[in-house]
């Protein structure tokens, strides 16, 4: 099985570059994939999913040419094949209404405002991917212990048991 993917969607190259830099510590266990628009992101997702690559997390901007981030995430949320994939909305320009839709229809797991603190974003992403690992790869969670959030791990193991 190939490394689970963290997909970053933003129309600005600089933002994608900054994300890649801030999430670099996770590349030992996850691959970072970029997309510059929602349409491109959907193509990439279809392709990865067909190849059997797990999609752990989607980080998306909201204001982009073409399909907006919230619309894109709502589309993802409606598909059962991405039921376990975590979704993070990373934006500085969402209106009150967009935010409501992001929660009600996009079922986002986290809302982070731009500009972000690199340390905080990394911690948030670690939490989200830890949840994903326990949902989607329960037999292999120990392989990811280096990049997992300990609180999530302890919380999940408490409910799950083991030898």
């Amino acid at each position, binding site marked *: *099985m190939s490394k689970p993917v963290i997909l970053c969607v933003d129309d600005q190259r600089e933002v994608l570059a900054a994300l890649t830099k801030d999430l670099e510590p996770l590349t030992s266990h996850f691959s970072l994939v970029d997309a510059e628009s929602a349409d491109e992101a959907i193509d990439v997702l279809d392709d990865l999913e067909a190849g059997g690559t797990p999609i752990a997390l989607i980080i998306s901007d909201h204001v982009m040419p073409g399909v907006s981030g919230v619309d894109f995430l709502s589309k993802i949320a409606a598909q059962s094949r991405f039921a376990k994939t975590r979704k993070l909305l990373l934006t500085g320009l969402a209106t009150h209404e967009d935010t409501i839709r992001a929660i009600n229809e996009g079922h986002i797991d986290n809302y982070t405002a731009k500009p972000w603190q690199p340390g905080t974003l990394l911690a948030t992403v670690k939490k989200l991917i830890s949840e994903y690992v326990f949902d989607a790869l329960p037999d292999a969670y120990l392989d990811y212990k280096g990049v997992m959030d300990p609180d999530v791990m302890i919380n999940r193991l408490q409910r*799950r048991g*083991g*030898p």
Partner: protein
Amino acid sequence: MPVGRIVKTVIALLAAAIVLMLPADTFGIVGLTVLQQRVMALFVFAMFFWVLEPIPIFATSVMIIVLELLFMSNKSIKWLKPPDTLHYEAVMHNFADPIIMLFLGGFFIGAAATKYRMDINLGRVLLKPFGTNPKWVMLGMMIVTAIFSMFMSNTATTAMMLAVLMPVLRSIAPEDPARVGFALSIPFAANVGGIGTPIGTPPNAVAMKYLTPQLLDSASTVKTPLITFGQWMLFAVPYMLVLLVITWLLLLFMFKPKADKMTVNFEGKWLRSGRAWVVYVTSALTILLWLLGSFHGMSSTVVAMIPVGVFCATGVIDSNDLKQMSWEVLWLMSGGFALGMALQDSGLANALVNSIPFASMSAMVVLALVCILTFVMANFMSHTATSNLILPVVATLATALPTLGDVGGPVALLLACTFCASLSMTFPISTPPNAMAYATGWIENRDMAKSGLITGVIGLLLLGGMLMMLKTMGYFATFGA
């Protein structure tokens, strides 16, 4: 699939295939049957897959049962059926072996205790007398962890205790060594505590499977365990407590706490709903019946079905809770039992033991070798898989070794081997509790390696001492040694 996993799978399959293909007379066993050679290949298959882990360890266990059914049973594939066979029903019965049911009873108590927060509330009561001095708090936490891990899974216990401990540790100064000491004390206490009862950790249950009258007299067909739940605790709990205190002193010595005050909060209230009372009363009653032995006529495996029945009937455990139970742990043991059954029923175990000149060997040397082998293996792979491989072989060896009386007989050998598995806690990969504590990020690899290895070695020495003592007291005499 990553290259590493493919390579491991190929190596494992190749090793098994070689054993299967070699001419029957290469193994030095006179009259090796087709079935016996297949069982030997299956053993090699299991060993490589459990050691290299290209697939989850429970999957290997399931494969053992499936391969036995397809290629070794009386209902196997017609054209590949060996002349002598294993009985297919007996192979399938391993999924519901009484020992598996004993463990299931433990799962039910653990799941109900967590769901109705009996664990947290009990923890608060038990920790109270230890005050706020970090030294004593550490001992208190270790004792609570050990007690819980005797009846709940070591992993769930560690998770629960670390969840309580994390906020406390975050509040103390980062340079205080107490952080490391506390973070290590929980997994170590869980590993050691698991020794306390037959259901404390899977290796103990595997041992119960082989601690039958057959161990003393190979002609016997009685399957009831030689040792009752209470008898196990009689020697295991004192041993465990002594080792626990030594571990505590060791951790205090290595990581002396600087803070002079520490409060651990188990938050919550005792639940008073009807179902909560069902949990309290049933758990207490089950444990009491286990301790009372067999005057009531019920074996410990039968008693284990009481919480299963009561919790299902009263809705304490619903279908969702049932789905969340660690069935893979039970299947992991089932596969081990099926492997052990194949070794014994095919006659391979006896044939192997007869081909080695044990009579000339000193029992002491055999005991030491077996213990060290188990200890080393269990440090690098799953404790359950280790005992699945080693215990059936040791059980056969024990019946064939005439000098074994010197160290307390077959029962002593098997118990020593089982305890050794639980003493392996050197690395993060050694046990799930270790891995979890390591993942908190407060522990360096070398801290764990040093303190874990010292604890393990002290445990081994203490084990030797305990066996001597039990033998002098004549404890093993009841088991024909």
